[in-house]
C-alpha cells in the first residue's frame, strides 16, 4: 500500500528506481487517492488516464495548456477548449518523463485568492474542508497536501503559488520573472505571471524548478538560469537574512501567524544565519495599489481574445459586436469582468498617465527599494499570508478584503523577484507559511535557507485529519 499522503516525489522516484513499486502502481495509487478524497476537496477539474512510462505523476494547474487535455483556466468561456499544443512547462515535464495526473482547480483566469472565483466551484482545504485552500492555485496546493499528487505546477501573478502553499502547509516557489517560460500559459498579467512548482519538500520543489526553468525561444522574456542546486546542508552560516518591518508588522497579521514566523526566524539565527531588521516602506505601502493597476490593465488586453470567434464559448448575436458582448457576458465571471473594467479604465486615453503610467513608475521605485535592501541581505523573511486559511465565503463578497490576502506576497511579485513559501508551524490547527524573498535569480539561496529551516522545524505536512 503506497501512502501518497506522506510520499515525496524524491522518495517515489527512489521506490520506482529500486523496483519496489512500478510506475503504473504509483499512478494508480494517486488515482485511488483522488477517487477517495477529491469528491470532498474538488482539487481537479480534469483527471487523466495513465499515460505510458515510469515517471513520477504530476498535477498541473488548469491555466497551463496541455495538448489534448481540456484547459479551462477555471472559466466557462473556455469550457470544452482542448489545446492543440503543450505549454513549454508541460512539454518539459513530459520530456522528463513526468506523467500528467490531471488539471487542478483555479480561480477564473487565476484571479482570486481562494478558488471561490472558479466557474466550476471552489476547492476545499485538506486541513479543514470548511476553509479555503487559498488561491488562485488552491487546486494544486490542496492536491499536494492531500496526497492527490506528489507535486504540481502552479502559476503566480501576485501570490497564487505562495499563498495557497501557505494555507495548505506545503512548499511553493514563485520563480524570478523570466526564468520560466509562459508560452502556452493562459495569460492573466503578462509582466507578472510566472509558473512555479508546488511540493511537499524544498528538495522536490528545487528539482521540479530545474525541470521547468530556463530560456525558451518561444517566450522572448525568458533568460538562461544558473544551474539549480538541490539543497542538502542545514548550515546557514554566512547567510544574511533581513526581516522587513513593514512586512512583519502589517495591520491584519494574525497573532498566531506572527508567533509561528517569529519562532522560525529565531530558528534561522540558531542555524547560523545573520538576522537583522530592515525596511521596505514604499513597497508595502504602494505595492497593492500598483499591482491592482498593472495586473488588471494587462488582463483587460489579454482577455480580449475570448470573443467567441475561434474557440471556447460562443453566444449568438445579431452581428459581430452583439455576439462578442453576449459571449463575454455569458462566459466571464464577476471577477474577470471587474478587473477588465478596472484595467480598461486605467488604460483609457486621458487616464493612462495618471493610472497605468504612474503604476509603472511606482513599480520601478519598488524594484529599486528591493535592490537597495538586497545590498545588505541575501534573503528576506516574513509571513506569506496575514492569516491562516479562512472559511469559505468569508471574503467572497468583499473583493477588497480578498485582495488584502495578497498584501505580503505582492510587493516582491511587482519587483519580479523570487519567493518561496515554507510551512513553519500551526495556528489553531491550521498551517502558517513563511515567505523567503530573494534578489533576482537567487532561487538556490532560497532553496538552501528553506531546506535548512524545513529540517530544523520538522513540520508535518500531512494534514492532521488524515494522519493514521
Amino acid at each position: 500500500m503506497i501512502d501518497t499522503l506522506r510520499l515525496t516525489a524524491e522518495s517515489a522516484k527512489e521506490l520506482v528506481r529500486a523496483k519496489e513499486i512500478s510506475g503504473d502502481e504509483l499512478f494508480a495509487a494517486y488515482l485511488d487517492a483522488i477517487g477517495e478524497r477529491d469528491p470532498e476537496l474538488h482539487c481537479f477539474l480534469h483527471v487523466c488516464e495513465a499515460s505510458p512510462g515510469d515517471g513520477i505523476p504530476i498535477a498541473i494547474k488548469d491555466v497551463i495548456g496541455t495538448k489534448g487535455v481540456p484547459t479551462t483556466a477555471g472559466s466557462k468561456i473556455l469550457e470544452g477548449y482542448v489545446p492543440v499544443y503543450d505549454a513549454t512547462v508541460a512539454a518539459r515535464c513530459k520530456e522528463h518523463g513526468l506523467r500528467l495526473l490531471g488539471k487542478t482547480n483555479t480561480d477564473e483566469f487565476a484571479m482570486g485568492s481562494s478558488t471561490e472565483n472558479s466557474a466550476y466551484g471552489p476547492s476545499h482545504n485538506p486541513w479543514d474542508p470548511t476553509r479555503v485552500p487559498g488561491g488562485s492555485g488552491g487546486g494544486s496546493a490542496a492536491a499536494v497536501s492531500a496526497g492527490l499528487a506528489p507535486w504540481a505546477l502552479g502559476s503566480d501573478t501576485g501570490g497564487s503559488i505562495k499563498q495557497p502553499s501557505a494555507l495548505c502547509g506545503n512548499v511553493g516557489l514563485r520563480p524570478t520573472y523570466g526564468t520560466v517560460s509562459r508560452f502556452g500559459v493562459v495569460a492573466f498579467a503578462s509582466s507578472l505571471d510566472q509558473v512555479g512548482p508546488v511540493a511537499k519538500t524544498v528538495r522536490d520543489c528545487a528539482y521540479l524548478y530545474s525541470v521547468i526553468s530556463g530560456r525558451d525561444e518561444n517566450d522572448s522574456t525568458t533568460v538562461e538560469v544558473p544551474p539549480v542546486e538541490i539543497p542538502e546542508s542545514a548550515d546557514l552560516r554566512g547567510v544574511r537574512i533581513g526581516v522587513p518591518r513593514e512586512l512583519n508588522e502589517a495591520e491584519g497579521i494574525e497573532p498566531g501567524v506572527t508567533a509561528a514566523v517569529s519562532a522560525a526566524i529565531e530558528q534561522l539565527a540558531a542555524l547560523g544565519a545573520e538576522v537583522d531588521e530592515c525596511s521596505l516602506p514604499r513597497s508595502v505601502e504602494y505595492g497593492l495599489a500598483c499591482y491592482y493597476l498593472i495586473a488588471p490593465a494587462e488582463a483587460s488586453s489579454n482577455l480580449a481574445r475570448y470573443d467567441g470567434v475561434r474557440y471556447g464559448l460562443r453566444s449568438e448575436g445579431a452581428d459581430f459586436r452583439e455576439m462578442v458582448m453576449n459571449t463575454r457576458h455569458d462566459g466571464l465571471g464577476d471577477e474577470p469582468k471587474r478587473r477588465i473594467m478596472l484595467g480598461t479604465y486605467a488604460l483609457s486615453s486621458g487616464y493612462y498617465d495618471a493610472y497605468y503610467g504612474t503604476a509603472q513608475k511606482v513599480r520601478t521605485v519598488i524594484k529599486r527599494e528591493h535592490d537597495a535592501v538586497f545590498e545588505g541581505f541575501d534573503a528576506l523573511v516574513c509571513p506569506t499570508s496575514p492569516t491562516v486559511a479562512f472559511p469559505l465565503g468569508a471574503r467572497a463578497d468583499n473583493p477588497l478584503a480578498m485582495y488584502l490576502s495578497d498584501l505580503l506576497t505582492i510587493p516582491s511579485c511587482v519587483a519580479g523577484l523570487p519567493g518561496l513559501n515554507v510551512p513553519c508551524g500551526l495556528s489553531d490547527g491550521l498551517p502558517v507559511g513563511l515567505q523567503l524573498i530573494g534578489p533576482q535569480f537567487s532561487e538556490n539561496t532560497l532553496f538552501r535557507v528553506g531546506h535548512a529551516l524545513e529540517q530544523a522545524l520538522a513540520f508535518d505536512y500531512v494534514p492532521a485529519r488524515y494522519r493514521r
Partner: protein
Amino acid sequence: MTWEAVIGLEIHVQLKTRTKMFCRCENGFGGAPNTQTCPVCLAFPGALPVPNRRAVEETIKLGLALGCTVADRAIFHRKNYFYPDLPKAYQISQYDEPLCSNGTLAVPTPDGEITVGIIRAHLEEDAAKNVHVAESGRLHGATATLVDFNRGGTPLVEIVTAPDLHDADTAKRFLQLLRQTVVELGLSDAELEKGSMRFDVNVSVRPAGSDELRTRTELKNMNSFNFAAKGIEREIARQIRVYEAGDVVEQETLHFDPTNEDSPPIRSKEEAQDYRYLPEPDLVPVHPPAEVVDRLRGEIGELPGARIARIAKTLSFYDADVLVTGDLDRLWSAVVGAGASPKDAANVLANQFVASGVDPAAVDATELAKLVRARGDIPRAAFDTALAHAGDPGFSAEPYLAQKAVADVDQLDPVIDRVLAANPGQVEQFRGGKEGLLGFFVGQVMKETGGTADARVVNQRLREKLGRS
C-alpha cells in the same frame, strides 16, 4: 481667393519575409484559407509572439533609405480593439518609440525636387481578412462573415509622411517613387492589387500662403496611383467649393469603391477610437546593434529618386523619369557607356525597346549600343527585329548592322510618287498647312518598301515633292 491643398500620406507595405511577424507560419499570398496559421497567429490561449529578426532589419533598411533616424531602443505596443480579423483583439504595433523616425524622401518633379518629411516608419502585424458572404455565397446582402487568417500576422511597415504635399500629381509621384524604392530594396512586391501596398490619404485645403491646418478628410481604398490622383483632385475641389460656399469641411473618412473609380465614396464619421495603447509586455525592447545598422546601410544602392535627379542633369526630367520609373536607367547608363548618344539611347529605350517587351536585365549593352548608333543607317525593319532579339543569349548586332537602308533616290522616287498619287486628299491637306501628315506619308513609304527605306532620304524627298522644303 486661391487655395492650397495640404496632403499627408499613410502607407502600409507588406514585407515579403519567409515567415510571419511573430510566428513561424509561412508568409505567402494565395494559400487555401486558414492553412498558414498556428496557435500564435490564431491567438490561442497562452500563445506568445516572437519577433521576426528579418522583418526588423528590413524595416530599418527602409528607414535608412528614407533618411530616418534608427532608434537605439524601440518598443512594441498593443493597439486594442475588437474586430473579427484581429484574433488577439489587439494589434502588435509601435507607438511612441518606433524603429525609424524623422526622415525625408526627395521627390523629383518637372519643377524641381520636393522634399517630403517622413514622420515615422514602424513595424507592425497585419490583420486577417474578412470575407462577407450571403447564404447564396455572394457578397451582396451578406449574412455571414468568414475569416481567413493566412494574412493575419504578416509583417507590415507603416510609413507616415508629414503634410508636405500640395498637389495630387506630386502625391502620386511620391507613392510611385516609394513603391519603386521598396521594390528595389527587395523588401516587398508592393502590389496594389494584391494589397501588399496600401495607402490612406489625408487631405485638407487652406488659403494659399497661410500655414494653418484645417479639418482634414481621410481617403481610403484607392487601389491605383491614378485613382488616388483623381480622388485627391476631386476632394481638393470639393473642399474648396465647401469653403467658398461659406460652409466648413467636416472630419470624415471617404471610403472609395476600389472596383470603380467613378463611383462616389461612401462617407463615414470618424469616431474617436480609444485604442488603449499598452507597451507589449510579452516582448522586450529592440536595441538595433550599430554594426547591423551599418551593414544594412551598406546594402542600399543609389535609390530611384537620386537616379532621376542625376540623369535629369544629362537628359530632360521627362526622359530621366521615364527611364528610372521604367527600370531602364541602368541599361541606359551601360548603353551610353558603350558609346551611344545619351539622348538617342533614351529615345530607343523609352519607345521601341519598351514596345519590344524584352527584359532589360537580359540585354548586352555593348551590342545594344551598336544598334542605337546605327539606327539611322539600317532599315527600320532590321532595327525592330534586332531589338526584339536583343535579350537573346549570345545576341550580336553585327548581322543587322550589315543591312543598309535604301537611300538611292532612283529606287525610292517611284514608291514616293505612288504613295502621293494614291492619297490625293492627304496631299491637299498637307499643302493646306497640315504638316503633321508628313509622318503619315513616311509611314506609307516604309510600308511599301518593307521598312528598308532610309527614313532621312524619304523625309527629304517627300518635302521636296510636296513643295515645302
